């Protein structure tokens, strides 16, 4: 159990590091995903720590995963529009010239 707790802390640090240090937008999104995974791991560890296996944290993690899928989808959509505007690697220039 201690091992999993340490793992959660390590994931937390990796996520925070990625969020603040990485310049690429995609990496920031991945860092946020790692960060939420750390919290989910903590919740699952808590569920196991209870004397009788506690189902509530499991339900929380399941709901959390659904929320994370939605936020990641919005993040990716926003990133694509942002890169289109900057003319970045999503071939934004081509699309702009076609529109005009």
């Amino acid at each position: 159990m201690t091992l999993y707790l340490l793992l959660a802390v390590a994931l937390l640090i990796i996520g925070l590091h990625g969020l603040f240090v990485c310049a690429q937008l995609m990496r920031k999104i991945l860092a946020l995903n790692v960060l939420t995974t750390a919290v989910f791991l903590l919740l699952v560890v808590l569920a196991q720590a209870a004397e009788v296996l506690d189902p509530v944290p499991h339900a929380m993690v399941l709901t959390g995963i659904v929320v994370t899928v939605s936020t990641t989808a919005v993040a990716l959509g926003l990133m694509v529009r942002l890169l289109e505007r900057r003319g970045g690697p999503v071939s934004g220039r081509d699309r702009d010239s076609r529109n005009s």
Partner: protein
Amino acid sequence: MNITLATALVAGLPLTAAAVAFAHPRVGRMAALGTGLLLLPVLAVLVLEALRTGPWRHNLGGWTAPLGIGWQVDALALTLLALTTLVALAAAVYRVAEGRLTRDSRYRRYFWPLWLFLWGGLNALFLSADLFNLYVILEMVSLAAVALIAAAGGPALAAAWRYFLATLLGSTLYLLGVALLYGQYGALDVSLLSGRAEEELVTLAAAVMITLGLLLKGAIFPLHFWLPPAHGRAHAAVSAVLSAVVVTAAFYLLLRLWFGPFAGMLPGLPAQLLGLLGAAAVLWGGVLALLQRHLKMVIAYSTVSQLGFALLVFPLAAADALPDQAHAGMLMLLLAHGLAKGSLFLAAGCLAWQWGSDHLRRIGPPMAGGSLPAWIAIALAAASLVGLPPSGGFVAKWWLLESALAARAWPWAAVIVLGTFITAGYLWRILRDPLRATSVDSAVVPAQGPPLPIPLAMPWAALLLALAAIASGLFATALRSAFAAGGLAG
């Protein structure tokens, strides 16, 4: 009307309307306006019930606290629900009128569904008493807000991105704190936790995580960096709701937690620290507002500054001299600030349409081309924001000041007075140039031609909100007793 039904409608109505507006984009406007008009009587029923029987709790589906999700209805929740409804309704009217001026863009059909999701999320947030349920609602509010900011396109996209990262990090920190609390006490309900939480290391760690997350979401100094560009660049109607209610929602959760489960730890360092952050926000936000050149940016920085006043409630209530007065002042401040801020953003939107820019030197004089109603709205809202009697802003600051003087907390009293002067300074700057110029020809900068005509409903929406901000001060005594009847300290 049945109270259970009324409580359910508060959150259910906007969410249903959002689904309808998504499926049938043509009825989006009607769905938004109809939601606002229907919510007014529903809220009136709840307020009357609270005045009659005091605050109450509603267990969803009849399930009680450890497993079920509870809703609490009290003065704090009802005040913020009323504020949300008024601002969102006025901003929706503004947006519908503005719609005639714009051409169709490909994202336009998503505007009203997102607007209604934001609205429903906010309403649910002010009712819910379950920390995990609140996490889901916070995410819903954030996603809708991010999408609404991004809908303005152009430079707003970068602002939306920064807001998105900040608010998502905030939610994750919040969830981490909630997980720690659950691990320690096996409860998610705010009132259950209030009974169980003790002063120990885990609770402190959870409090730090949750507070950090909410400070980030509430744009409280020094974590306010994302707010001015996001609120300054969004559509005016969106900025109005974001500045008036969405940041207040994060602050609302801070209140619920620090005067609930964490109340035992509040006196001493935490209260002083939160107060110091508030004082720094008042001064720093105010000084930066003085330096801005664009009307909407001045208003956005003023949000950072004004929310700082509300944070003073923590040291003042912890000082225990006149805690009720501090609570009432803070609640009045949230109400008056929200109404005035919504009005300022809508009026700024009107002027930006008319003169083609919201640069302070490009906005024309009040007498030119029918921009008078918008200017009156700005003047009235500014009067309330500064705190001129008899406005709501005056009453709010007066109550806070009374509480500070009773506690002999001179530094906090000084912050309130100094912050008021700075507020007067930056709002006077907005009014100064246009007031000097009496016609288009003598405007400070050569005019860019006559102002565009805009639908009258746009400035009138702003004007009505400004009048509401003033009126909240006129009815201060009645509001004070209503706050007391509804269980003030949450």
